[in-house]
C-alpha cells in the first residue's frame, strides 16, 4: 500500500514536470507591460527611487531594474530591438563609440541620451582623526605604482612613499593606507581617471608623455600600487565606511551618498582645496565627480507602455531638480539651464548621434 503511494506520488510529480517543460515554449515572451531597465550599480540607487515613484503615481507597473554594471547593461541594451531586450540602460559614464556602433549594427539606431546628474567620489577618514587637505598630485604620488624619482633623477621608480608626510611635508605623519573598491568597480574607474590622472597631469615629466606616448601615460597614471598600501575592500561602500570607523588612520574611497548618510562616522578630505558638497560638485570645483546617464530606446516608445511617462518623471523638476527627491538621495543635480534644455530635448525624443 505504502509502496504504491510512493510510486503514485512519483508518477504525479513526473507528469507535472512534463507539463512544466511542455508549457515552457508557451511561456516565451511575446508582450511585456513592464519597463525593463538594466545597467550601472551607481545609478541604481537613484533610478530605483524614480521607478518606485513612477509605479506608485501612475497606472503603469513599477519598472524592473537590474544592476548589471554600466558595460554589462550597455551590452544587453544594444543586443536588439524587441520585447526580450531591455528598454533603458543606466550608465555611470557616457556611451563609448564601440558600444554605439554595436548598437547601430544590431538595429538599435535611435537612442535617447539623458544626462541626469553627477555623483561625487569622496576620500574620507574617521571623524576621530583630523580632516586632511589633499591635492590630486598628492593622491597620485601616494597611490601610483610608479612615481618620478624624488631625488630629481630622470625615470620612474617603484613608489617609495610610506607616510603622507613623505609625499607632501604639509600632510600629517601617518602611514599611507587607503581602502577602496576593486578594479571591477565603476567607482574605482572614475577615481583613477579623475583623481589619479588629474594629479598625474600636474607632474611635468609625466604630463609631457600625454602628447608623445599616450599608452605609457595612461599606464603610469592609471596603475595603483600593489604593495599593500591600497587595500581593495570589495564593491560594498558600507563595508569601507565600517573599516574606516575601525581604523581611524586609514582613508577610504566611496560615493557621495554614503558620505551623506554617515556624516556622524566619517568626514571628507579636501581635494584641491574643496570639500565635496552639493555645491562644489555641482559647479565642478570639486574635481572628482562623474556624470550619470541613462539611455532609452526610441523604438520601444509606444510598444512598451510607460516609457514616455518614465522619461518625463525622471526629467521633472520634482525628481532631478535642486529640491527634488533624487537630491535627497545624494545625487548632485545638473545646473538649471542644462536641466531645462535637456528636459525639452527629452520631451521631443531627440536621439543621439555619435560620429
Amino acid at each position, binding site marked *: 500500500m505504502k509502496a504504491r503511494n510512493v510510486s503514485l506520488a512519483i508518477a504525479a510529480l513526473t507528469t507535472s514536470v512534463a507539463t*512544466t517543460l511542455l508549457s515552457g515554449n508557451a511561456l516565451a515572451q511575446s508582450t511585456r507591460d513592464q519597463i*525593463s531597465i538594466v545597467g550601472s550599480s551607481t545609478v541604481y540607487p537613484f533610478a530605483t527611487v524614480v521607478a518606485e515613484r513612477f509605479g*506608485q503615481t501612475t*497606472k503603469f507597473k*513599477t519598472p524592473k531594474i537590474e544592476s548589471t554594471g554600466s558595460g554589462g547593461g550597455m551590452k544587453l541594451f544594444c543586443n536588439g530591438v524587441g520585447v*526580450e531586450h531591455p528598454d533603458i540602460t543606466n550608465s555611470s559614464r557616457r556611451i563609448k563609440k564601440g558600444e554605439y556602433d554595436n548598437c547601430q549594427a544590431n538595429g538599435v539606431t535611435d537612442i535617447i541620451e539623458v544626462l541626469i546628474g553627477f555623483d561625487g567620489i569622496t576620500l574620507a577618514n574617521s571623524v576621530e582623526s583630523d580632516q586632511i587637505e589633499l591635492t590630486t598630485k598628492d593622491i597620485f604620488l601616494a597611490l601610483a605604482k610608479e612615481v618620478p624619482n624624488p631625488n630629481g633623477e630622470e625615470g620612474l621608480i617603484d613608489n617609495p612613499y610610506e607616510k603622507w608626510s613623505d609625499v607632501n611635508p604639509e600632510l600629517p605623519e601617518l602611514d599611507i593606507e587607503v581602502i577602496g573598491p576593486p578594479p571591477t568597480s565603476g567607482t574605482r574607474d572614475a577615481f583613477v581617471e579623475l583623481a589619479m590622472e588629474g594629479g598625474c597631469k600636474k607632474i611635468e615629466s609625466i604630463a609631457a608623455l600625454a602628447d608623445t606616448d599616450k599608452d605609457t601615460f595612461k599606464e603610469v597614471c592609471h596603475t595603483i600600487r600593489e604593495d599593500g598600501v591600497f587595500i581593495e575592500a570589495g*564593491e560594498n561602500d558600507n563595508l569601507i565606511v565600517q573599516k574606516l570607523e575601525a581604523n581611524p588612520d586609514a582613508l577610504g574611497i566611496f*560615493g557621495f551618498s554614503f558620505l551623506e548618510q554617515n556624516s*556622524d562616522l566619517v568626514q571628507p578630505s579636501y581635494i584641491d582645496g574643496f570639500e565635496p558638497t552639493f555645491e562644489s560638485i555641482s559647479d565642478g570645483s570639486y574635481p572628482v565627480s562623474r556624470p550619470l546617464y541613462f539611455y532609452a530606446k526610441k523604438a520601444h516608445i509606444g510598444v512598451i507602455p510607460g516609457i514616455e511617462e518614465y522619461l518625463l518623471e525622471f526629467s521633472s523638476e520634482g525628481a532631478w531638480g535642486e529640491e527634488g527627491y533624487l537630491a535627497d538621495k545624494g545625487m548632485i543635480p545638473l545646473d538649471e539651464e542644462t536641466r531645462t534644455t535637456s528636459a525639452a530635448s527629452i520631451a521631443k525624443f531627440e536621439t543621439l548621434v555619435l560620429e
Partner: protein
Amino acid sequence: MSAQDKRDTTELVQSSLQRRYAREKRFRFFGLAAITASLTFLAVLLITITLRGLPAFKQTFIQLDITLDAKTLGTDENPDTDALRKANYNGTIKNSLLALFPDVKKRADKKRLYKLVSNGAQYDLQRKVMADPSLIGETFTIWLPVGDDTNGYIQGNIDTTLPEKKRRFKDNQVQWVETLKENNQIERRFNYTFFERGDSREPEMAGIKGSLFGSMLTLTVTLLLSFPVAVATAIYLEEFAPKNRWTDIIEVNINNLAAVPSIVFGLLGLAIFINFFNLPRSAPIVGGLVLSLMTLPTIIISARAALKSVPPSIRDAALGVGASKLQVVFHHVLPLAMPGILTGTIIGMAQALGETAPLLMIGMVAFIVDVPTSLTDPATVLPVQIYQWADLPEKGFVEKTSAAIMVLLAFLIMMNAVAVYLRRKFERKW
C-alpha cells in the same frame, strides 16, 4: 623468550604508555578546541545578526491629523482614479506637520520637519483614499510611518552628544520628536510592512514578501524538476544500468557536475533558456530551471548512496517470492531508501535557497517592487534581496538586511530540521 626480554617488552610498553596517553589527550584537546572555536564564531555571527536585526521587526509611527482638501491635493471634488493616484498627498502631510509646529518658518527648518514623516507615507495615504474616495474633504487622524533618520533616533542609533554638524538628525528635529513623544503621538508597533510588501528604496517601506514569494516559486520549480529526474536517474543507474564504460563515464560526469561553480549554471541558463528558448528574463521559471540543474547532481549522488545502502538480501527475498525487477525496486528498495533520498533532496534545496550567483546572469538580481504571483512575473529571491539591501547607503537598511538574514536562516534551519526528522522517523538499521 627469556625473562630478560619479557621485562624489556613490559618496560618498553610502560615507557611508551605515557606518551600514547599524552597523544590521545592532545588529540582530544585539539578536537575540543576546534569545536569551541567554530561554536564561538557561530554564536558571534548569530548574536550580531539578531541584535542588529531585531529592531527591524518594530516600526515607529507618528499620529497626524490630515485634512484632505481638494485644493492641496490638486484635484477636483470628484476625481477619477488617475487623478487620485497622482494627487499631492505629500502636501496634505506637510500641512498637518506645519499645523503641529506653527513656529517653524524657515525653509531649511521646514524641510527638516517634513523629514520626520517617511517619504513613503504619502502612498499609505494614497491607498487609503483610493479605497475610499469619500474621505476627500474630511479631516481624520491617521498613524503614518516615520522617516529613516527619525526611526534611527527613536531606536537610539543617533548619538546626540555629537556636534550638530556631524549628525543627520538635528537639534530641532530632536526637540520636535520629544514634544510628539510627550503628547503620545509617537508609537512603536510591530512591523507588518516588513512581511506584507515588496522591495522599496525607503527602508521603512521595504518588505521581504516579494523576495520570499520569488524564492518559493523558484524552489517549487526546482523541486518539481530535480526530484523526479534525479530519483529516476539514480534508480536506473543503480538498479538497471549495465556496468560498462558508458555508465562509468556518466557517473564521473555527474560527480563532476556536483563540483562545478554555480555561476557556470547561470551562464548555461542564459544561453539556453533565455537566448534560445526565449523565456523571459528575471522569471522564477528560469531561476528554477537553472537551480534544478545545480541541485540535480547533489540529489542523484545522495539518492544513489541511499539505494546502495539497502541490503541485497531485500532484493533477493523479493525476487525469490516472484516479484519482477520493477516491483522489487518500487515496492521494496525505493521505500527503504526514501529517507536518505529525501534528506539529500532537502539539503540540495536548502543549497538552492541560498544561491545568488547563477541568478545574476538570468536577471534575478533586480529591483522589483511588485510581489510576483506567477512563474513568469519578474522576481528576485531572499539572498539577492539581502545582497541588495547591504549595498544601499540608507542606514535603515542595515537592520533590514540583518532581519532578512534572520528570515533566511529560519527557513534554512526549518528545512534542515525536516531533513533530520525524516531521517529519524524512517531510518532502518540492519
